[in-house]
Structures are given as C-alpha cells and as structure tokens.
C-alpha cells in the first residue's frame, strides 16, 4: 500500500469517526482529525486513525443503544424498531456465526459475515437519521438491479451477482429490502418507476426468491394503502414473480448458504436452534413500535419481506439471510433498519434529549471550554 493511499484512508477514517460521534462529543472528532494530520508517518497515521474510528464507533453505539436519554425507559427503548432492529441484527448475525462454527465452515466465511456486520453498523451510524429516500435514488437503485441482470456475473443461467474484489455480492439482497421499506414513505412517480424497474430486473435475473420478497413487501403495503403507486408496483412485482417462476432455476445448493434451515438440525439441536432462532429474530423489529405512530405500513412491509426471504430459504436453494454465509443480506438488513427509522424532522412520540452517556451533567458543564463545541 502506498503512502498516499494510507494517508487518504486515514483521512477517510477520521472523517467517518467525526460523523459517528454524537453532537456533544463532536470536538473530540476534530481533535482526532488534527492529531492524525500532525503525524508525519503515513502508516502510523493510518493506524492511529483506525483506532480512533473504532473508539468512535463504540461511543456511537453506546449513545444510540443506551445513552441517548436516561429518562427514556427500557420499555420505551424496546418499543423503538431501530433499537430492536440493531439488537436483532447483531443477535441473528451472532447466532449465524455460532452455527457456521458448529457446521465447520471455513474461517473466511466467518470473517466475511463478521466484516459485513461491522460495515453494516458503520453505514447505519454514518447515515444517521436518513430523510426519505428520494424517488430519484429509488430509481437509481432499481437501475443497479437492472444492470446486474444485464451485465452481472452469471451462474447456471442466473445473473444475480457482481464481483467486488474477491467477493460475490448480490445487490438485490442489499438494496431491495431498503427500497421496499423506503417505498412506504416515498410513493412518487420516480419511486414507483424504481420499484417497477426492480421488478423487471428480478424477472430478468431471474430470481424467484427476491421477486417473491418484493410481492410480499408490496402486498403488505397494499393492505394499508390502496393508491395507484402501490397498485402499479405490486402488479409489476406479481408479473415479475410469475416470469421468474416460469423460468428454470437450476442453481445447486451451496454449502453453508442454502438449505441450512433444516440441515442445521443434522449437526445437532443447538445448531438447529441457532439457525431457527436467528431467522425468527429477523422479523421481531416489525412487532416493535407504537400502533399509532403512523409507521405501521413500513413495519408490515419490513416484516413481510424478511419473512418471505426466510420462507424462500426454507423452500428452495436460496440464501438464508444473516444466519447463513453471505454478507449481502447482513448489510441489506441493517440498511432496511436504517430506513425504518423515523426520519429527521418527523415528530417523535418519545421525548429524547441529546447528551453524552453517563456523564451528561459534566459534559454540559464543560461546554464553555470548547471541548464539545468544535465548529
């Protein structure tokens, strides 16, 4: 690795650290960035920056998971889909790692899944409270899925993957859950077009499982709102599902990826329970949240799509999300949780006060020193 690349990576790392830190600690992100700039040796700077990023990630996790408000009760926290979603993502991934270990999967598989979890958590934290997914972004994401169908890596007649370095990535697993949940709040003409393009892509790939997931997610949305946008997207999804079913799917099962929901019990009871328990966790965030918070449609879509994905894995040679080998679903799950969150600017039903964990009073007292008030 060249010195210039190390320096650029170090700069990216400290910028990410600065964005991760909650507002009361923003000055510390600035302190870390300037300290890294002052280090002459590029390798030393990169090591220092990556360590700082790790520390910032832990601070951000503590802030988001527990320290946001000491007034907020545990019960209220447990009713927030984002908190529940993060816990379920970590729990299901952990159970998946346990299963992979018991199944004798290569160490590289465990590293990929663990790495995907870290990347997903990082993206979740960096995204912050995402505003609505704009229709143009939804259309662009649909375009990515279509490009995968047209130019992606093909195996046994199915074009569902892209090569990213040494890894196969399945873009539909990463992007489609986020698009479906995002469509709950963004039903513009562009967003609808994005969903129709995604449906077309799944028919062309072809991918029965993900086309079924699209039908399930949009079907759940349609039970709440029968508008033209939802109806059009659902009709396209149903057509895509039918087209995918009409095409042969001869992909063989892949070890540690497919058919693990029932084969896990062949290893032993604990391995089987880890897989079933991890799969069940995926649906839990759909049950969190208040009934009257106006987000029921998004939660229903979230629950339906992940339930459909688990069902597809049980019925055919399709990836078992999070508990099986494969990083795409891990990242896709966390992205869908990020979109499930209440967007910035929407009124909250739970009063939240911003402060640093455990030391809020001290932190407020220290504000005049400039430590917490960096520009």
């Amino acid at each position, binding site marked *: 690795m060249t010195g210039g690349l190390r320096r650029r990576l170090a700069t990216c790392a400290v910028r990410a650290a600065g964005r991760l830190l909650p507002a009361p600690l923003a000055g510390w992100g600035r302190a870390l960035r300037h*300290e890294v700039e*002052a280090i002459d040796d590029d390798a030393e700077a990169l090591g220092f920056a990556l*360590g700082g990023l790790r520390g910032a990630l832990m601070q951000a996790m503590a802030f988001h998971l527990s320290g946001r408000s000491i007034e907020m009760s545990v019960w209220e926290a447990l009713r927030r889909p984002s908190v529940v979603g993060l816990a379920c993502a970590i729990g299901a991934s952990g159970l998946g790692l346990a299963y992979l270990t018991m199944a004798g999967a290569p160490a590289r598989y465990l590293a990929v899944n663990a790495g995907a979890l870290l990347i997903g958590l990082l993206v979740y934290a960096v995204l912050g409270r995402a505003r609505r997914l704009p229709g143009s972004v939804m259309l662009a994401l649909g375009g990515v899925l279509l490009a995968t169908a047209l130019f992606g890596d093909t195996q046994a007649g199915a074009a569902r993957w892209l090569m990213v370095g040494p890894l196969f990535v399945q873009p539909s697993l990463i992007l489609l859950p986020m698009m479906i949940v995002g469509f709950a709040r963004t039903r513009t003409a562009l967003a609808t077009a994005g969903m129709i393009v995604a449906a077309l892509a799944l028919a062309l790939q072809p991918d029965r499982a993900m086309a079924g997931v699209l039908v399930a997610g949009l079907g759940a949305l349609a039970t709440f709102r029968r508008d033209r946008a939802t109806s059009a997207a659902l009709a396209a999804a149903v057509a895509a599902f039918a087209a995918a079913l009409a095409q042969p799917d001869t992909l063989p099962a892949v070890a540690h990826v497919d058919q693990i929901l029932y084969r896990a019990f062949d290893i032993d009871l604990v391995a089987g329970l880890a897989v079933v328990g991890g799969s069940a966790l995926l649906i839990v965030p759909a049950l969190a949240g208040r009934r009257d918070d106006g987000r029921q449609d998004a939660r229903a879509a979230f629950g339906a799509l992940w339930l459909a994905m688990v069902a597809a894995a049980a019925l055919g040679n399709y990836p078992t999300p999070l508990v099986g080998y494969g990083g795409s679903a891990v990242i896709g799950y966390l992205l869908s949780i990020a979109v499930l969150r209440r967007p910035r600017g929407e009124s909250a039903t739970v009063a939240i006060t911003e402060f640093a964990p*455990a030391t809020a009073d001290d932190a407020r007292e220290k504000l005049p020193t400039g430590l917490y008030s960096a520009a």
Partner: protein
Amino acid sequence: MTRSRALSPQARTVLATLLDAAGGWRHGYDLARAARVKSGTLYPLLIRLEAQGYLEAEWQPPEPGRPPRHAYRLTVRGVRFARDNPPAPAPGAIGRAVTA
C-alpha cells in the same frame, strides 16, 4: 451525574503518563505512544477523564504548516486522582515503561 467505575490498567497508565508531564501539556499521539495504548482506547478514556474533571484540554495554536492540536493535562483534582491510582506495580511491562 458521574458514574464511578473501577479504573482499568490503561487508565492508570495514561494517568501516570500525564502525571509524569508535571503539569505540561501532552498531545494525543505522543500520549498514546508513551502510555502504549491504542487511540481507540485513549480517546474514550480522555473523554471520560475530562468529563469527570480530572483532565483539562485546550486547542494549541498551529505551528507554521501544521494543524492546531488538542492538548491535555491533569487538573489539580486529576493529579490527586493519578497519585491515588498508580499503575499496577507487578508484572506490568506497561507500568514499568511509564514509571521508568
């Protein structure tokens, strides 16, 4: 409200390193090197010590061609706290490095 926790060996070492500076300011990088702790451990620790009033920090004006830097030193309370919590004496290579 400040939460009291048992001090980690790294926290004791960082406190001892700051105590060695005898009231002088230290930067994050050289503090990490002297105390032999990773930056991912150091900064959360500094945040906690500062919030508890054991540490003060200031932005130092930049030298030509260099960025401004954040520097740290113990408060009077912090000096007492560091003296009351020295690094573990026994096998700690870290402790010897700091107090040698």
